[in-house]
């Protein structure tokens, strides 16, 4: 098998965890096998700029959505996690990008995009708790419960879930999104986070067992899937298009995580340090590097194939293609966008 090493045309600012000489040798989408016109659109597309604009808008709206009121602590705790500098805002960006395949006014998508970020932050806060993953750090800063205490962290998560729904209801312009569609969006988010989605994934993660695929899908694939689907729902996409977005989102979500695992293991190997062991539950620990690379290629291919089904939408699909590449080669450091 011959792979080309990956370089993109955007300025390369690497993740702090990813030194210059570590590459994932996977064929990227701006390669000869992709059709010439979409290939050139893809290589010209500046994902970093696209993401930076959305990042700024979403962060601004999130800031406004959680003002500090009495009693201060709960609002401070909510803001601490939602407005963390290290947040990538991947769910909102995915949602807007999916919306823009079919829809023309991103104002329709912003409230839902913000809600996705709130709900994402909430589940991370709960995941990090001592009684769960017991993580001391998150997004480059101490975990919520380390700063505010366990009780306040639990409550901050409890408050962020309904705030997401409230935000969608209060801020989505009804002339842009009919209420019946909004109900589907709300149901989708509720299902994703609840018993059939992330909560289930976290449960399995805690209980152990050799079901890493299921866990990864439930925890990481779920958010990617939900974000993409919500974008499509808001824009009134057809059922089969929604399902296509669902499969794409899931694949990209898991892909991102498998690549994380590989990067981390390569870094650990290189530096000869312990690194943040995922308690032997990551893809690399269970399957080894080679098999993990195969999985990466499978997921990349799967995600791309789903998007090929949106050919008739032309350039509108380019951002979603570029996410696949980004998941693999991390051409820029998203947290730099907050400067």
């Amino acid at each position, binding site marked *: 098998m011959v792979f080309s090493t990956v370089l993109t045309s955007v300025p390369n600012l690497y993740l702090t965890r990813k030194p210059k000489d570590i590459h994932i040798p996977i064929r990227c989408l701006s390669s000869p096998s992709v059709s010439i016109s979409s290939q050139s659109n893809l290589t010209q597309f500046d994902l970093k700029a696209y993401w930076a604009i959305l990042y700024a808008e979403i962060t601004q709206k999130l800031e406004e959505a959680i003002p500090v*009121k009495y*009693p201060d*602590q*709960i*609002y401070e705790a*909510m803001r601490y996690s939602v407005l963390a500098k290290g947040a990538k805002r991947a769910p909102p960006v995915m949602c807007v990008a999916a919306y823009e395949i079919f829809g023309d006014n991103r104002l329709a998508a912003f409230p839902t995009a913000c809600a996705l970020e709130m709900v994402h932050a*909430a*589940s991370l806060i*709960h995941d990090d*708790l001592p*009684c*769960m993953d017991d993580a001391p750090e998150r997004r480059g800063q101490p975990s919520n419960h380390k700063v505010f205490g366990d*009780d*306040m962290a*639990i*409550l901050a*998560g*409890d*408050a962020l*879930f*309904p*705030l997401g*729904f*409230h935000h969608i*209801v*209060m801020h989505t312009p*009804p002339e842009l999104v*009919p*209420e*019946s569609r*909004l*109900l*589907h969006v*709300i*149901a989708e*988010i*509720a*299902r994703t*986070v*609840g*018993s059939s989605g992330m*909560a289930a994934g*976290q*449960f399995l993660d*805690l209980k152990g067992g050799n079901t890493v695929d299921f866990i990864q899908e439930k925890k990481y694939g779920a958010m990617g899937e939900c974000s993409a689907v919500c974008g499509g729902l808001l824009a009134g996409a057809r059922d089969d298009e929604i399902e296509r977005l669902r499969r794409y989102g899931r694949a990209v979500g898991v892909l991102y995580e498998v690549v994380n695992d590989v990067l981390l293991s390569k870094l650990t190997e290189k530096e000869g340090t312990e690194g943040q062991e995922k308690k032997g539950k990551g893809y690399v620990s269970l399957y080894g590097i080679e098999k993990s690379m195969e999985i990466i290629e499978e997921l990349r291919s799967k995600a791309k194939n789903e998007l090929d089904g949106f050919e008739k939408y032309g350039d509108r699909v380019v951002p979603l293609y570029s996410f696949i590449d980004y998941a693999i080669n991390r051409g820029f450091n998203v947290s730099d966008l907050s400067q």
Partner: protein
Amino acid sequence: MDNDDLRRGKPTNHKVFGEDIDVLAGDALLDFAFEHVAVSIVGVTPGRIVRAIGELAKSIGAEGLVTGQVMDINSEGLTDVGLDYLEFIHVHKTAALLEAAVVLEAILRVDVLDDILDVTKSSKELGKTAGKDLLADKVTYPKLIGIEKSKEFAEKLRSDSLELLQGFDSEKAAPLIALANYIAYRQN
């Protein structure tokens, strides 16, 4: 938080299942509630269901239940907690949810009464075109179960609402009682 061993006469969830499952169960139930409201209600316009979801969300979040809980925790060990403080806790911890229950009832029930009024009142009385439901052959309560049964149903909903308000100070609950009666007996 309260570190309680009993709830509703049974051992608490975390005592039986462990803290980790407890947190997840709470999250799952919270979200299932929203999913349930979003998909399971029949005979109500989407606009009203969306409003109902907004109200529900407000009542259990930082402006309602959660803040009540925060204040409750903050008050532990304090010696000079005044009545105002206590009222603040209870308004948020307990009353918020009850209020939401009544308000949701009102939001959702308006549809039943709208349907009855559409059939029985004239356009002038209603302030909008009468009889349009029948013309459009929409599915309405009167159409499904007849006028008399619809009126009975509306009356039952009204008295259910009032029953929910029973345990409260009648002066404080007056606005809600009035709302329930207003909606039930309105002519337009």
